[in-house]
């Protein structure tokens, strides 16, 4: 197991380094003169040149990359061009918001999704299964801005249950924020719900075909024991790893949702950074995303290994 963990960690570091290179390269390719972005359109050439020198923009790229990476890992993420504030604390606030939203999404979707998936899987080919399948298939590919706008129309303007806008105050407590989290979470939930339900269904159907289920049945165990103890345990393994991965993904993958609802999470910050050509901020957001994603992947691997003795013990 230790070896396995070390191995996964090794991959994680490798992926991070490669990804950081990709991000660095891409942000370097973004059009626009960083110094000009900072100083604005009226700045003189002299001031621009001085700033370029100060920011190390004239250094060779590999050196810039190296410096950037070192700063990144030492927690010195620099100062945002556009907001003039330190990036790390700025992002931590956003990260907290994103985590709050993610947690609500997971709580809203996962139990229900597993229940739906299990019900469908156990009744493969029956009416309920077909309904769930077609329903989830319909929802899973729907862009969030379509579903989000419909939800706003219904729940905010129509019924007036939840606010249409989720621009929570930075630092507001979870309970304060909760009413504003419901609609964006619901929007993202639709997709995740459908996805996890489908996955669970597939897992259940797959596991039900396994000979060990027959063994368990023919041992004379009650059906409930067979399903809950034998089938579900194995069927949920892929589901749980996907949940872990989507956790990492949602932290900054909810770009559209956050923009539809004006929710101050990392996703909105990302769009902001891109629109402003705020390179340090952009690099910070993307790296944070990647680290989050990589950690979630690691968690998924470890959960998978824990649930799968074959991996854990070899």
């Amino acid at each position, binding site marked *: 197991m230790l070896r396995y963990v070390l191995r996964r960690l090794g991959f994680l570091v490798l992926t991070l380094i490669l*990804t950081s290179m990709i991000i660095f390269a*891409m942000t370097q390719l973004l*059009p626009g003169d960083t110094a000009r972005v900072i100083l604005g359109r009226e700045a003189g050439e002299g001031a621009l040149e001085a700033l370029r020198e100060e920011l190390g923009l004239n250094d060779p790229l590999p050196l810039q990359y190296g410096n950037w990476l070192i700063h990144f890992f030492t927690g010195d993420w620099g100062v945002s061009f556009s907001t003039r504030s330190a990036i790390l604390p700025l992002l931590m606030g956003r990260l907290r918001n994103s985590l709050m939203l993610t947690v609500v999404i997971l709580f809203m979707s996962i139990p229900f999704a597993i229940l739906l998936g299990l019900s469908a899987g156990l009744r493969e080919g029956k009416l309920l299964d077909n309904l769930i399948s077609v329903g989830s*298939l*319909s929802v899973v590919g729907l862009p969030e801005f*379509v579903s989000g706008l419909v939800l706003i129309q219904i729940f905010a303007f129509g019924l007036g249950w939840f606010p249409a806008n989720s621009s929570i105050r930075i630092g507001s407590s979870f309970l304060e924020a909760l009413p504003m989290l419901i609609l964006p979470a619901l929007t993202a939930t639709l997709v995740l719900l459908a996805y996890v339900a489908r996955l669970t269904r597939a897992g259940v159907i797959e596991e039900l075909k396994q000979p060990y289920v027959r063994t368990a049945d023919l041992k004379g165990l009650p059906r409930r024991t067979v399903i809950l103890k034998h089938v579900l345990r194995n069927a949920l393994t892929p589901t749980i790893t996907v949940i872990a991965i989507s956790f990492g993904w949602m932290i900054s993958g909810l770009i559209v949702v956050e923009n539809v609802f004006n929710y101050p999470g990392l996703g909105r910050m990302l769009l902001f950074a891109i629109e402003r050509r705020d390179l340090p901020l952009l690099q910070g957001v*993307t790296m944070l*995303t990647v680290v989050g994603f990589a950690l979630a992947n690691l968690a998924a691997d470890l959960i998978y290994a824990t649930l799968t003795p074959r991996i854990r013990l070899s």
Partner: protein
Amino acid sequence: MIRVALGAASTSTRRLKIIIAALFQRPSSSVGVIIVILFAFLSIFGPALAPYGPNEQIAADARQSPSIKHWFGTDQLGRDVFSRVILGAREVLSLAGLGTLVAVFFGSFIGMLSGYFGGFLDEVIMRLFDSLLALPAMLLALLLLGTLGPSPGGLLIVISVVYTPIVARVVRSVVLRTKTKAFVDAARLQGESLGNILFREIFPSTLPVLAVEASLRFSYAIFLVSSLGFLGVGVQPPSPDWGLMVKESRAFVTQMPWAMYFPAGAIAVVVIGVNLAADGLRKALQDD
């Protein structure tokens, strides 16, 4: 069952007929296929069918609700929403479709080579792809679009870059499974050339998976194109891109809900249609 039937079909046209028949066997996938065909039709013949031009403004008719003259009403600039939705089909489907094709082309090519040769090359490519996939697709798309600028060409590249690794991985896994099969060994023992082994022996085995993957990618590409349009970084106005139309008319949803809900509905219908068809295709090709 379909597999058996497929096996019994000796020509590719007959196989195609069987697959199509299988698609129409389920109500859900027939609905999907019909939707896809309908929109494909619209994207080809849209200009002939649309009563107005995509950017044709009739000031006198601005903000009209759906009527005989304007089936889906008009928007704030007096443009006919019905025409724009119809013409938008080409916009969205051609971009998504072309992007998917490019991704499928490069993805299967890279996946084939990487899977067949393995070793260091494979390791490098797969690590690189892992790293690309470590970025959420939307983030990667935004980064790329920021670099390339918002243009149809940029979008095309974005879709290709975002989906090539996914397709490559899927193809690679099939190649890894297939290349150890005895018929590939047999071909090698016959002295078949590398090209023949790759394309004559192995490639056909990837087709079912590739077809399903391509249709899924297509659906996600529509998703991506319209989401980017909605964020305002994709197709540029006044193009009748559905995502863009939703963005532009979002403000007027209380006054002219039709201007937002018809394009939004078009996205929903197409995506659901493609998904249902893709699912049907998967079922037809991969199991039962």
